[in-house]
């Protein structure tokens, strides 16, 4: 039943290329998290507004991001934008798709976190003469980020895992893309993808570890 010889040597030979791919993956994920967090903060504030237009916009964004597959979101950006004559590269589509997704999920987390920041903080800040923007920037958001730090680091791991979807829209320089390239050339599917899985696992664990160290460094009183 088991007449298959594993060829790990060729997979290990590809390791430097795959590590370069892992770096691209990490960069993409970090960039999408950065943009996603900023947009999510914006969405969170928009959802608090009195005016219905920004509120509806933000609510629609969040519900679409949370109720459709992230692969679908990438697809819409990659194939859908083409019908407007807007041809984006697969990396841009991937980045935009993941950012869209991250922003939606993080906005929901931030809403929960915002509830945990006491209202009196805002009122105290305003009565000290801060403008609404200042109060948000210096009082609310620092406390909010502290509360949502754990979900944030979790989302970072998700972002890394989501970058693997880039290969479906033809990205070939991230970790999965590089792996798929080697796979197509050699048909050693199991070896290459097992190596990629190990690398993904290591990346995910490193992120968790770094987040823990950062939390320890940032949030001690």
């Amino acid at each position, binding site marked *: 039943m088991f007449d298959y010889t594993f060829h790990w040597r060729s997979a290990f030979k590809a390791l430097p290329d795959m590590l370069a791919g892992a770096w691209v993956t990490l960069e993409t994920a970090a960039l999408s998290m950065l943009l996603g967090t900023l947009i999510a903060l914006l969405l969170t504030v928009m959802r608090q507004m009195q005016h219905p237009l920004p509120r509806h916009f933000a609510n629609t964004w969040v519900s679409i991001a949370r109720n459709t597959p992230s692969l679908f979101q990438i697809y819409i950006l990659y194939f859908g934008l083409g019908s407007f004559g807007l041809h984006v590269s697969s990396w841009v589509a991937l980045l935009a798709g993941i950012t869209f997704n991250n922003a939606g999920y993080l906005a929901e987390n931030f809403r929960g976190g915002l509830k945990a920041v006491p209202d009196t903080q805002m009122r105290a800040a305003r009565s000290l003469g801060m403008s609404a923007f200042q109060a948000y920037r210096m009082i609310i958001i620092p406390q909010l980020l502290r509360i949502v730090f754990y979900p944030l680091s979790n989302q970072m791991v998700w972002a890394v895992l989501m970058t693997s979807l880039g290969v479906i829209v033809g990205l070939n320089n991230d970790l999965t893309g590089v792996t798929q390239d080697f796979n197509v050339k050699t048909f050693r599917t199991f070896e290459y993808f097992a190596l990629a899985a190990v690398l993904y*696992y290591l990346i995910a664990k490193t992120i968790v570890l770094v987040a823990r160290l950062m939390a320890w460094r940032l949030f001690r009183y």
Partner: protein
Amino acid sequence: MFETSLTSNDLLFLLKGAWVTLELTVGAMLIGTLAGVLFGLLRATLPRATLPLAWVLDVFRSVPLLIQFVLFNALKSIAGLDISAFAVGCIVLGVYAASFCTEIVRSGVLAVPANLRRAARSLGMSYWQDLRHIVLPIATRVAFPGWLNLVLSVMKDTALVMWIGIVELLRASQTIVTRIQEPLLVLCIAGLIYYVMSLVVARLGARLEKRWQEND
């Protein structure tokens, strides 16, 4: 003014794809929930001894699902197992769901106060009676929202099985796009179907949750 070459047959094809998506979700959740409840109970009762189990399940959460599909598919061919791509999809998604479900069940069981269990035992209930009549009903109510979220996320993750060649909703929409070259319209319809399916599951779950809370 508005013309499209999308026919009713194409819509039917999309709905068939949606049905495959639902089947995959149900299959994966069946495997995931059964294994998750078992592992979750084990993790809650013997936290030390089952630590290796937690490590193994953690691997499934830290490796992209796409790669898990490819790996298992390759492993299937290597080992010469004769199972369909659909079964591969179900198994991989099921194991993936189980790794999340274990944590959900574990936290649900741990949320049952220890004093309540002691009270149940001191009333003369056996270990299994305590588990069945006291712990599981309470843990279910605690764990249900998390489980529902898992169902929704598994439903969205079924989109990835297209990579191993199963025609589900997203793949079906892609097939149609290649034929009629109207990506935005077709993808929007597919997105709408996903959206409605998620919404229905979420609504049903919310109703069930409310009904359970009536007697509390």
